[in-house]
């Protein structure tokens, strides 16, 4: 079934169509929320709320205006921004690097693994330090695979503003990583 058919079914109260949409988009939405919020519990809350909003507002989606994934990420983006504004958190959550995906290859050398961990932690902190719009632009374009145009739609800004945000984000990360002396091994 196409996104349009699935959403039409959802509008008519078809829960099995809703399940298909959840299965198709959950990974992308939860990863986006995690990279924006930095902790697992809040990510799960946001993902749940995003899909609930999809169910309630299914009739508002217009196929000719945006893809379903774009619309859904826009919902998740707005929820993340609202959440971050309500719960301004200056300190990093302790569980940022908890629960690495099990399909990652294990490090043969524990020391090498430890360095990789430190490097990842440093980069995670640098990302967390970025302003919300720069972080969001980076996550949408680098991780979620959206084009600059789609990311601009999700973030409700012009493409020029989006490109400016992503350029500033990458420049900041590059500068920060070179200052802290972390180089990829």
């Amino acid at each position: 079934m196409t996104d349009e058919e699935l959403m039409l079914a959802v509008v008519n109260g078809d829960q099995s169509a809703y399940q298909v949409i959840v299965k198709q988009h959950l990974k992308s939405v939860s990863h986006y929320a995690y990279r924006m919020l930095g902790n697992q519990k809040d990510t799960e809350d946001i993902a749940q709320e995003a899909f609930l909003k999809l169910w309630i507002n299914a009739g508002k989606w217009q196929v000719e205006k945006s893809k379903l994934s774009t619309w859904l990420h826009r919902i998740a983006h707005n929820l993340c921004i609202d959440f971050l504004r309500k719960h301004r958190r200056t300190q990093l959550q302790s569980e940022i690097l908890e629960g690495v995906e099990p399909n990652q290859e294990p490090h043969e050398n524990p020391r090498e693994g430890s360095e990789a961990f430190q490097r990842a932690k440093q980069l995670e902190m640098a990302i967390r330090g970025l302003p919300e719009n720069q972080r969001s632009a980076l996550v949408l374009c680098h991780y979620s695979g959206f084009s600059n145009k789609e990311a601009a739609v999700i973030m409700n800004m012009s493409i020029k503003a989006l490109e400016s945000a992503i350029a500033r984000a990458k420049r900041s990360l590059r500068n920060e990583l070179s200052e802290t002396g972390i180089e990829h091994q």
Partner: protein
Amino acid sequence: MITLDEFSHLIEVHSSNLAAWPSDLQIAGEDFLATSEEARALMKDYLELEQQLDELPVPMFSGLEAKILGQSLPPRTPSLLEQLLEWLLPNSRFRLRLWQPVAAACLPLVFGIVLGNFYSFGVTFESDEMEYWEDELTMLSLNNYSENDF
């Protein structure tokens, strides 16, 4: 020819993969990369950054799918406004097709209104008599009907 600043901006905006750049800038980017040592250093930096970004772990959200699918969903009964909008502007192609005969039936009416608006077909409401109707009314009002025998 592009400058180092432009090259840097393009890498930041479109990634270090030149194939992802706008097609009209790819050749200029390749040429600049081939001739500039600084461009190559910049490219190396961003390649490393992107590689490190790719390696960042994300937790496994085990149980989240079940949680979302298990949450009670409010009944999807569309509001009256939604129902009205759906009736007027149906999303479903089938229901949209129902409007086609209605629209076809209305076409002669619309055609008639448009035509009637622009062409009089020789029928005119203007006549000499009509020009004096106000005078006629005034004269009638002056008549003393009480003198008439009924």
